[in-house]
């Protein structure tokens, strides 16, 4: 009976863990349980969730991409710099589109190398991460841009829900939550309802079988990495917008949080498994933990440790449940005999 609630990727378990943690922290520190905190966690999830959607797609396809943060800052910084150097302000949408083009291009580099030469994805993206960052700082610019285009500044200050309360801190829900929700729904639809999405699952399940089934495996892998590049670029622009500055040294180094969220969300590092719902829960869980540790006065260094522990626990649970499954099938074979 409980098995049904667990979900195909343990999403139920994750949701339960999330609820337990929220309740526990709220009891310890009642300040935590408020609209203010909720909205602030949602705002904090905007960038990591877009990253996580991209990472989810690659992980399902059986690969990994650690260059997404480098792609994000490369694309966003370059787009903002072009606007700044040219002294024009095309607005958030055009800047995002520009960045997305750069992201697609960098993703194509990853995809072309990985799909055509069948190289290990971790090593390739580790390499391109350094490459993208190096090129950004050497050729595009290493200067911190403190005053991005005014239009981004405007967006940064826009909330869709603002509750201003006399006694308490106000609660503000940032407008960029909306495009993130749309993106999330789009990715979920793509993975579940399109042949492209199913092909990603198929390749992650068994790439040789996918080839024999007639899937254009090389092309799909390229598209996966391009898609990750585009998502990363969007996340990069949102990050620049929310932070109201463009810093070429930014983002790279925070990949762990995102990958941990996706893996906690039930995506298998061996490919073929994962869900958008799980990923959303994973991102929220990590945000809640970061946030609550902050409220509890725990130093940032320990937050990193906490995320590391969570990652190992998440992978451990996967391995354990896989083990239990084989044991179960062994027993059913006995009963069937």
């Amino acid at each position, binding site marked *: 009976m409980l098995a049904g609630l667990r979900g195909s990727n343990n999403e139920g378990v994750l949701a339960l863990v999330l609820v337990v943690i929220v309740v526990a922290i709220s009891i310890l520190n009642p300040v935590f349980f408020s609209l203010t905190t909720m909205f602030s966690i949602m705002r904090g999830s905007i960038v990591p969730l877009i990253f996580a959607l991209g990472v989810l797609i690659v992980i399902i396809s059986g690969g990994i991409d650690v260059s997404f943060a480098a792609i994000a800052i490369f694309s966003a910084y370059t787009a903002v710099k072009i606007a700044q150097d040219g002294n024009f302000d095309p607005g958030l949408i055009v800047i995002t589109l520009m960045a997305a083009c750069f992201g697609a291009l960098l993703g194509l580099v990853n995809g072309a190398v990985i799909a055509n030469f069948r190289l290990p994805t971790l090593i390739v993206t580790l390499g391109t991460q350094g490459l993208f960052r190096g090129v950004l700082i050497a050729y595009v610019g290493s200067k911190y841009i403190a005053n991005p285009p005014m239009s981004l500044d405007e967006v940064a200050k826009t909330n869709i829900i603002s509750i201003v309360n006399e006694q308490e801190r106000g609660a503000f829900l940032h407008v960029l939550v909306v495009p993130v929700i749309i993106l999330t729904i789009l990715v979920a639809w793509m993975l*579940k*309802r*399109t*042949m*492209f*999405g*199913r*092909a990603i*699952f*198929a390749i*992650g*399940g*068994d790439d*040789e*079988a*996918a080839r*024999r*089934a*007639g*899937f254009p495996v090389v092309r799909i892998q390229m598209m996966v990495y391009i898609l990750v590049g585009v998502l990363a670029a969007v996340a990069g622009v949102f990050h620049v917008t929310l932070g109201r500055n463009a810093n070429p040294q930014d983002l790279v180094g925070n990949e762990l949080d995102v990958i941990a969220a996706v893996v906690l969300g039930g995506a298998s590092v061996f490919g*073929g*498994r994962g869900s958008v719902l799980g990923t959303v829960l994973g991102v929220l869980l990590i945000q809640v933990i970061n946030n609550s540790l902050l409220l509890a006065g725990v130093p940032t260094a320990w937050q990193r440790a906490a995320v590391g522990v969570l990652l190992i626990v998440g992978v451990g649970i996967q391995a354990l449940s896989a083990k239990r*499954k084989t044991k179960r*099938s*062994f*027993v059913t*074979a*006995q009963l*069937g*005999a």
Partner: protein
Amino acid sequence: MAKAYRALPVLEVKNIVKTYGGVKALDEVSMALTAGNVHCLAGENGCGKSTLIKIISGVEQPDSGSIYIDGKLQEKLSPFSSIMAGIQVIYQDFSLFPNLSVAENITITSQVAIRAKLFSASKAKIAAATIIKELGLTLDLSAKVEALSVADKQLTAICRALINDARVIVMDEPTTALTHTEVDYLFDVVRKLRERGVALVFVSHKLEESLQVSQDVTILRNGKHIISGIASEFDRKSLTQYITGRDVSEAREITSPVMTAKPLMEVSHLCSSGAFNDVSFTLHSGEILGITGLLGSGRTEIAEALFGVRPAESGTIEIDGQAIRVRTIRDAIKAGIGYLPEDRLTQGLFLDKSVGDNIIAGSLDKHRSAFGLLDGEGISKTTQSMFDRLKIKAKSVSAPVRSLSGGNAQRVVLGKLLANQPKVLILNGPTVGVDIGSKEQILEILRNEANLGRGVIVISDDSLELVSVCNRVLVVRQGEIVDTLTGSQITATNIQEMTTA
């Protein structure tokens, strides 16, 4: 009359030649498939069967020769055009997606073929349900394929072939991993496929099964087309002759252990809940003991308990009169037990390492010089002697195992076990997936080892193999030894009846 009337072949290949780097994999091979007939394609490993399948499925292009589909010459057959022409190959590994549902696995290739853009899980279910009903099967459509038994995986693969309007289905080793009842069920399905007018190609090492189900036969040897004909004109003996090019004895030929002496190994009241119960038997030096039973009967679990893979919960094991404790694999090896696992490609070999490295991998402890360093001379002596003794067909001991045929790879695993000088040798399915010539040679190796004084346990459901080498056969059903066959009781029919009863 019956012979004169032969419909136009659905698929015909004529005088196919295919060369790989100077070696002729196929040399003037022809074969014609008729709708509603099963065509048995037989031959030893490496005879060119797989190459022929690859050419039919468009994966490889022949150097010369022609391919006709419905009498029409195919200029260039690609994997895609082959599928569109209704040719489906069910590979030995089924090529299914373990992480997807049965319904999706059945429908996904047809969706790829029509270049669909969107996917609907509910429509996939309806389409899959239709085909399953047509064949009268029971499959859980929403179950993930990784949770299925091998037999159900195979049925899923067959359904997938049919949903693509398959007119030719090639089955590569379809019965290797199936039990007797599952094989019977598969043959029922094959009958239904024939009624639908599907032409089937059946590639199998199990000759009587192939003869039972086939109407036509084509035999290849070393890439050459030896003979094609009607199945009823062949029998097991003539098939074997054509396949191997020589006479292969299949008579019962057993070792003669001294059964009165103290047993080499004595197992008493071994229990493991959910796997087997109260298992007791003895094994004498020089004896070959067979353990048979259906898949899931507990036969593999008993072997794994003896070897410490899944230790038993209670019971005793004695070797040479001394009680031993087997908690881990190390304990078992120390006590002188060697085990050949069922799935040796994943469990028994380092495929990219050389033959020599593989042979020595299990017995490095026995090849140490002073200061605990490895004794290079001793190692090369052992590997070379195993290489010669087991007649491994490879360029040298330094050839990678991946380059070997199934039968030869099997000998490397045996070599690895023997290098450790075990007293008791446990072999799980020692000749599964091995062609008939190599099979006979492997059984001969077992007889030799038994004659050297080892005790050998053969776990198998190949009744002919058991008849050929075993002094005694234990029959396992639902985790218990229900009978012990000795002497003249050991016949193929007896074994098959006992296991399924």
